């Protein structure tokens, strides 16, 4: 009988998931492939929030800004340095990670509302910088073009399928790495600090250092998600990363269950589904331009509040509790 360690099991699980995604990607239309790419991207961004908020107990409203950092880094390395898209995405991850490391040194020792407010200020102020450096392209932004799929995949291989492959693979690898991290010694120290910082410190954990690490890793993952997001919309501009993106990601994380990485795909699905639901609602019942434009935001916020009130530990807990 083959004995598997939990790490190997997890790797097999991710490979299996990737294989399922590959099969699914072959069988659905272009629109679904495109939406699937968004699901993968949002899932990754939500995973980065869960790592930070759920496991290390830091609430960030600035993940839209961190995604923007990664997105600009990736776009510039494709556009100006003409690097390979894979390298560009790695650069996006690393740049956002380093940015998060520096930022983390400054903010990671803040607690609750201070951290939330400071990251909120970051999310509001960082995108305005894009208008001040000509290299960032102002409001028009920078083009992010990963190019057509390689010719060896054949004629029928569409651009959307290529997007789906890239974003799914990148998200799978990164989420796999995050889940490894969370199941390692670091994951335990994250939780120890979240639950009781003083006793964690007594147990010899350097709380400040661990929090900064969590912040940096989370930023890196957010940066990769930012790179993927602008790949899907083929260009990066300040308006691609509004504050509402941070709120949506937080909603996705809370809906998934902030303390559980397992359901991130659910959060990603919800974020992609909400605009669709709002769209079909408004085409059915009509309504003014203001109603149409603000309905998605309303649904996201309402979902956030409902999730906090009725399923604060995620839908999994809701089902478990009902069983008793």
């Amino acid at each position, binding site marked *: 009988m083959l004995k598997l360690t939990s790490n190997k099991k997890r790797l097999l699980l991710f490979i299996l998931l990737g294989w399922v995604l590959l099969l699914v990607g072959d069988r659905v239309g272009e629109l679904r492939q495109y939406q699937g790419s968004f699901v993968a991207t949002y899932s990754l961004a939500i995973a980065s929030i869960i790592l930070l908020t759920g496991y290390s107990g830091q609430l960030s409203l600035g993940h839209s800004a961190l995604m923007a950092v990664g997105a600009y880094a990736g776009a510039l390395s494709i556009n100006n340095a003409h690097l390979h898209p894979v390298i560009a995405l790695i650069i996006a991850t690393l740049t956002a990670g380093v940015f998060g490391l520096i930022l983390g040194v400054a903010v990671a020792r803040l607690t609750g509302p201070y951290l939330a*407010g400071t990251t909120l200020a970051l999310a509001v102020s960082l995108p305005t910088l894009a208008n001040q450096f000509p290299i960032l392209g102002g409001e028009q932004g920078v083009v992010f073009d990963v190019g057509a799929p390689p010719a060896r995949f054949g004629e029928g291989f569409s651009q959307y399928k290529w997007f789906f492959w890239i974003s799914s693979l990148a998200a799978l690898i990164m989420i796999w790495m995050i889940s490894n991290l969370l199941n390692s010694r670091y994951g335990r120290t994250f939780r120890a600090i979240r639950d009781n910082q003083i006793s964690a410190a007594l147990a010899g954990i350097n709380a400040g250092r661990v929090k900064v690490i969590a912040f940096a890793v989370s930023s890196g993952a957010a940066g990769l998600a930012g790179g993927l997001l602008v790949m899907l919309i083929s260009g990066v501009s300040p308006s691609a990363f509004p504050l509402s993106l941070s709120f949506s990601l937080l909603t996705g994380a809370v809906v998934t269950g902030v303390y559980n990485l397992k359901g991130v795909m659910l959060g990603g699905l919800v974020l992609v589904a909400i605009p669709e639901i709002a769209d079909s609602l408004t085409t059915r019942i009509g309504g003014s331009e203001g109603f149409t434009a*603000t309905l998605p935001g309303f649904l996201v916020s309402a979902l956030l509040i409902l999730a906090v009130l009725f399923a604060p530990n995620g839908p999994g807990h809701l089902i478990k509790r009902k069983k008793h």
Partner: protein
Amino acid sequence: MLKFITAVLTSLTTGSIYALMSTALVLVWRSTRVINFAQAGQAVFTTYIGYEVTIRSGSYWIGVVAAIISGALIGAVIDRFFMRPIFKRIKSGPIVMIAPVVATLGLLGIIQAIIGFIWGLTYQSIPAPVSTDGFQVFGSTIAFSPFNLMVLISVTISMLLLTLLFQKTNIGLALRASAYSPEIAKLSGIKVDAIRTLGWALAGAAGGLAGMLFVPSSYLYPNAMDVLLVFGFIAAVIGGLDSLFGAVAGAMILGFAINFATSYISSKLVFPMAFIILILVLLIKPGGIFSSRKGRKD
């Protein structure tokens, strides 16, 4: 010299509007230990009410009164029927730390969406009651108008009234006592829950006034006060979150720093300057410059 005087005067004006927002945040923080991110939404919503009343009645002043009263009412309702149940419901688990903040964020989204439902996303403007053209000094126009002067006077008066309320009345004493130590206040017979709601109402009123004073020199749209929320938060952190005097002083520091940086260095420095000040304060004196307490427990 003229540039310097103009910079001082505009700093005072913008600083006083930040002061209203930071006061609103501090009032809520003192009573509930929550940063109320929904404050931006509440303030914009009440400003829309003020806008409707101004347009229908033709008088800006009736609009201001309507905004202040509706702001107080909305603040009280939110605390009584939204925040209090949430605090009652969520008592255990790691979610406790982030639930209040997340709840106010959700509320912010809902309020802004409701504004969109009712008034749409188009930019509205509220006509100013006095001229917004700059004063003439030595034959040249400066960037300080009678309206700016009015803003400055209104904020000063409302701050004086708030100080009177806090220092000279029994309600003020109860407000201070519940902020300082809710349990001892409860033991002394103060209805801490009601006082909390009063704190939210005062904050809502301050937000409504801030909106009515800010919008005539800008525009009214659902996200009009997001930036003011951020600046108000930064000002409150400079002041130490706990102290009303600190909130006003922090707002003035922020107003001066931003206006001097923009008029002497570059007009693009508004946000970077504010963010740098925030980080500096948090790094050097995380308790705030004017904190009334020695240590902060949460």
